[in-house]
């Protein structure tokens, strides 16, 4: 098979299929990660001390352990919990224990969303802390309730400040989605590896894959800077 023929009939179709799978992993993980990050970040900065300590523990665990280990834990480790339950309570709990058997896709999204959420919460928390209390006080002085003052005044200001950090984390997420390969997902990297080993064309396969990721990251960067520009406050150099 000629080189061009190989690209046209084997490599690119496989990578395109992988790209689609990657996108299906990345988008929900990013959305869930941001949502978890917002909840955890707000809880850590404003919650009761017990809640914020619990959330600190979540962040410490998920930031403090390798993502690969977390991923394998969700995919290979979790079913053991179901097996244990069955051994304790008899086969009657098997519908329950099947809940602990995550598909490769579900384990990937769970692992990425929870890990990403831990990082996102740091950016959200930092942004909330950086917003001066004065604007919140001014809102209260006008008769806003505390919830209104937070969501109408502090949150929009904090969101702008958190955006660059959160965007950066999404760009990391695009790249670490390639780890889904180790739980048997045929996403971009998984496809590339399959083709590369089958045809012994490692350099081309991986170069092309790198190009795909670069394109994804470029697209995300472009989207993020578009958002930053849209949300930028005229005259404020600090938040451009």
């Amino acid at each position, binding site marked *: 098979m000629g080189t061009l023929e190989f690209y046209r009939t084997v490599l690119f179709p496989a990578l395109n299929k992988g790209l689609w799978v990657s996108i299906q992993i990345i988008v929900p993980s990013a959305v869930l990660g941001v949502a978890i990050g917002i909840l955890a970040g707000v809880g850590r900065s404003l919650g009761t001390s017990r809640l914020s300590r619990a959330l600190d523990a979540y962040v410490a665990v998920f930031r403090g352990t390798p993502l690969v280990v977390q991923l394998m834990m969700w995919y290979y480790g979790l079913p053991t919990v179901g097996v244990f339950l069955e051994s304790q309570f008899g086969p009657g709990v098997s519908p329950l224990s099947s809940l602990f058997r995550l598909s490769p896709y579900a384990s990937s999204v769970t692992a990425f969303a929870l890990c990403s959420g831990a990082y996102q919460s740091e950016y959200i928390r930092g942004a909330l802390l950086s917003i*001066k209390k*004065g*604007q919140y*006080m*001014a*809102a*209260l*002085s*006008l*008769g*806003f*309730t505390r919830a*209104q003052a937070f969501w*109408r*005044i502090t949150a*929009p*200001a904090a969101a*702008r400040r958190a955006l660059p950090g959160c965007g950066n984390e999404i760009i990391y997420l695009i790249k670490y989605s390639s780890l889904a390969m180790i739980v048997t997902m045929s996403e971009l990297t998984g496809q590339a590896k399959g083709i590369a080993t089958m045809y012994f064309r490692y350099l081309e396969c991986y170069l092309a894959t790198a190009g795909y990721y670069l394109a994804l990251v470029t697209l995300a960067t472009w989207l993020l800077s578009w958002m930053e520009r849209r949300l930028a*406050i*005229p*005259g*404020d*150099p600090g938040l451009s």
Partner: protein
Amino acid sequence: MTAQLQKATAPPAGRPGDPERPGATCTPYAPGAPPVTAAASPAPPHLLEACGITKTMGDKILLHEVSLTLDRGDLKVLIGPSGGGKSTLLQCIHFLNPPDGGDVFLDGESARDMSRMNICLFRREIGMIFQDFNLFDHLTARDNVAVALRRVKGWAKREAYDRAMAELDRVGLASRADLYPAQLSGGQKQRVSIARALAMDPKVMLLDEPTSALDPELIGEVLKVIQDLHEGGMTMLMVTHQVGFARHMTKEFLFMESGRITESGSPEELLRDGSGSRTSDFCSKLSEIQGG
């Protein structure tokens, strides 16, 4: 010859006559002390009355049973050295930072008795002007003024904007309505914040050093707005170091030091040469610094 100074003595921590609440009491700070009950009298309530305001932070007492009253149209000026508790007092009066002891009455209504929802109603009746403006950075001048009308008073966008423009016009900034705070000068920011407070139709305005963060050439424009407000009959309590301005406008100075109002009286009494008051001492030091 020393002037007669009205040394503010510890006032009775009781609420003077309120026809609707005969015998209403202020909670005195001292935990075991019996509350002082004021005799019912027909005197109309003051517009705003703070009585026995006490605030502690850790084991530090920031305010010791501070009391003051404001009647309709009053402009009282609070002065005193840094750290004396002036800002804390304004925040306590506004219940932005609820006092530990004492109470605030607005038109005879006790702030302490209010539920959390009603305290928002109480706060919106009192306008606060901050030293560093505290404009909402992500909103234009117009939206800064309109946002509370819409979200707190529930006005439609159209009406809120019309009112915002009227208020901006009153402070001379109608042409800047579409600019963001970062695009305004300090004096303009402070005028927007005054417009923002006025739009809520407050009964009282509390001003915490409204000109201290401004360059000297911008102070005048803000003082002018405050003077117009005073002439329009607005009731105000103002912390300021602009003694020259204040002495011509106010009938009463309150001198605050270490969490207490230690002297109060008219500028003529307190600032007369040789009055020997802490106030005149402080003010002459201030004017040395300000070069006039």
